[in-house]
């Protein structure tokens, strides 16, 4: 089943008065099946973050449309947008985006509280999530008191607790050491195995090699796609790096 479909998305930023408009996305189309783990790779400035923001409804495309479960996101307006984001999507950000003023527990519960979930239901959902992510002991701590890896796991817990259709991850390993990165990626693998759909934006080949499919983006356009198939993660990793170095070369030649 097709979960997400992006159709010819363009995004043009108008720079300050008189400046030349800047085209961040030049017609991007792709789709994500339910249960898939997709990575979007690209260098800095390739437009991948803009794309993710549009998919996340944090930003509006200049033209083109995004469909979630066959429904256009354009139709979701104003007040409902926040609820939509909260219930259908889960976010994991590079800089965690945890609230300093909340304990780990409250950070995780935040989206549920915003949806006015009954207390008992919140408790019921919290338990398995924190168990799975191994952050049970941290519940009463504040974000400043825990490590980067723990923060990111908290963020993941916050993303999955709403049981979203799709988890969007923006450079989730960007601020983590290699051990924490590894841990986080295996959590993603595990989530995916349980049927969770994931879409991750990254420039790390290692992170991308955990996905089933990798889309490459450059200068606002998708230019290649790799499928993992039955290959091991190691083999897939090698293919990704090979494609990347080729793409880089091509890019330089064009210049």
């Amino acid at each position: 089943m097709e979960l997400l479909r992006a159709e010819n998305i363009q995004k043009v930023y108008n720079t300050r008065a008189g400046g030349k408009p800047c085209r961040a996305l030049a017609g991007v189309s792709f789709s994500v099946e339910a249960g898939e783990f997709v990575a979007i790779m690209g260098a800095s400035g390739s437009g991948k973050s803009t794309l993710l923001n549009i998919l996340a409804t944090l930003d509006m495309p200049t033209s083109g449309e995004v469909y979630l479960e066959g429904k256009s996101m354009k139709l979701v307006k104003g007040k409902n947008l926040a609820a939509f984001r909260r219930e259908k999507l889960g976010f994991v950000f590079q800089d965690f985006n945890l609230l300093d003023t909340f304990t780990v527990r409250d950070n995780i519960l935040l989206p549920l509280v915003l949806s006015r979930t009954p207390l008992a239901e919140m408790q019921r959902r919290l338990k398995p999530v924190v168990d799975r992510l191994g952050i049970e002991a941290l519940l009463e701590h504040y974000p400043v008191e825990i490590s980067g890896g723990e923060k990111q796991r908290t963020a993941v817990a916050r993303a999955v607790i709403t049981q979203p259709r799709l988890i969007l991850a923006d450079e989730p390993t960007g601020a983590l050491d290699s051990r924490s990165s590894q841990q986080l990626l295996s959590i993603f693998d595990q989530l995916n195995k349980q049927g969770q759909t994931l879409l991750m934006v990254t420039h790390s080949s290692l992170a991308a090699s955990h996905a089933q499919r990798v889309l490459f983006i450059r200068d606002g356009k998708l230019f290649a796609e790799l499928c993992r198939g039955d290959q091991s993660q190691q083999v897939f990793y090698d293919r990704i790096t090979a494609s990347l170095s080729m793409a880089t070369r091509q890019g330089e030649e064009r210049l």
Partner: protein
Amino acid sequence: MIHYAFRLAWSNLRRTQNVTLPFFLASTVTVFLHFLIMTMMFNPHVPEIRGGATLAFIFQLGVFVITTFAILFMISIHQMLLKKRKKELGLYTILGMEKKHISLILFWENAIQTTASLALGLILGFVGGQLMWMILLRMLNSPDGLPYTFSLTALICTTVVFLGLFIVTTAVSLFQIHRINPIELLHSEKQADKPVRFLAVKTGIGVIVLGIAYAIALLTNNMFTALMVFFFDCLLVIFATSILFESGITFFLRWLKKRRSFYYKPNNFVAVSMLSHRIRRNAASLTTICILSTMLLVTMGGSAALFFGEDNALSESNPDDLTYTLTGELTSSKQDELAAVAQQLAAENNVVLEDVQIYSYADAYSKLQDNVLSPFVTSDYLVGLRSAVIDYGYDVFLIQADTYRRISGQTAKLQEDEILILTGNEQVQLSDLTIQGKTYAVQDIRRDTPFSCRKYNNGGGTNTSNSSELLFLVFADEASLMSVQDYLQEGEWESNTRIGVNYAGTLEDRTAFYEAFNQKVRALDAPVRYATCLDYDRQEFRSMYGGLLFVGVFFSVLFLTATVLIIYFKQISEAMDDREQYLILQKVGMDEQEVSATINRQVILVFFLPLITALLHTGFAMPLMQTLLVALKLTNPVFTYTCVSICAILFTIFYLIFYRMTSQIIKKEVAF
């Protein structure tokens, strides 16, 4: 580099104008007020105003308070702003500026601010001073034409004070710059406040201290104690407020967090967490806001009550247009002679003589407890916080039945062991009275005789009907009076004569009559011990209360400026701090309405907690204030309370408007 630093400083000031502009305005207002009151103080024509000596003293007091306040206020605001900028300054160091360069920038920023506000404040002070002087003269009911003079001394004083402040604040900034290291600077804002410890103990202490402070305010019933405890009581209240704002709010927030069904609601959830996150900083600024508001309300209410209560105060101390108390008795022929003189002078000076009352009496300040009358001894003055003066003290006038008959024209047949009581005090209800073991039957209590009902008040003496401490005892004859006089005066044997004159006419004629009659009275054998003249006292009162109101308004403007500035800075700086948090919240799925509801909840606490506490403090301060005002002859509590309440309402309205304005600013600041 100097030039470059200047340019950088200038652009810094412009870039952060939502902070620098209010600060600039507030310091300008402070300079303006300081210069204004300095100029008034040094005006050589102040002594020419009637009551000028009082006015001069009030001005000196005003200068002292304003200077002290300006110093404290400017330094603390400066500190606050510097703290906010640590991150920016850290960035400068990392970008390769040396500390001396940063110091130079800070120096220039401060110099520009100070010069600008000093210049503008002085100009405004000079221009506005003229207007203020005219208003002051009008308030004091003073003859026009006393010129406003520019005072170089005032200019120098104000300049010295604010340049001094400039040097101090710059020095503090430089000192702090040299102490810090850049990494620390960059991260200095992130940390949460340390949790408040010994919560229950602190809250308990706060409640107890506040209770004591309130109890003192309520129980003190005399001005001697009131004067002594006032300052101490203020300190207690400040201490209790700060401790309660810190531990009490924490306590409350923790309790809210424990009530999960309340806490896990969208709006409460975020607001409660954010508030407990910076509880200490909140507590400090809330205390400041609360205390400033209370000071403002008390000052404003008190001075307004005095100014507008002038008639009340006047009639308290002036039962008649003109009164004299002479030492010694006046023979009846002399009394008649004086009455005739009054008639004659009235005719000469075109005034209508309404009433001349002359009688001799013996008086003693005495203690009336239950139905026993005894001499008032020194040890009775203060019993704890209360004074027997208020509770049992009466000014007892002993007169003979003859005198009573002559003055009132009413009959009075008294036996040797019978007395008649004349008083305006409704609370005196006696059927018999024991003096020195001897019990007298009270034949009647008369409340509407010419002794206690005078032209301007119903107490006949110093107090209004309900609290009048004036009590006339009428005895059958001289013999029975004298034994009581001997006992109550403790053997001093003093008799006095009271003269009360009432008359109507134009102010000039009245003054002429007063001067002529005064000469005659002063020429009598019996020396004048005490005298009041309504017209004369009115001018004195007006000068004193007008001056007080004037200075009171000054203080209020000053306190208001400070309150507004602190609230504004607190709001704006928190909005900036919280911006990131609100952005995250919106990313995670909070809609705009919820964000604005959350902001409202926080802002409501910041605004209304200090307001309500300030109103409460003011409410409890009122009885104490009233006790102090009695010293200034303002004895009508209802009037004082009304004045303070009106001030409180006006202040609340202003506060609400200001609340609306700032919450708009904050919402703009955190917009997605």
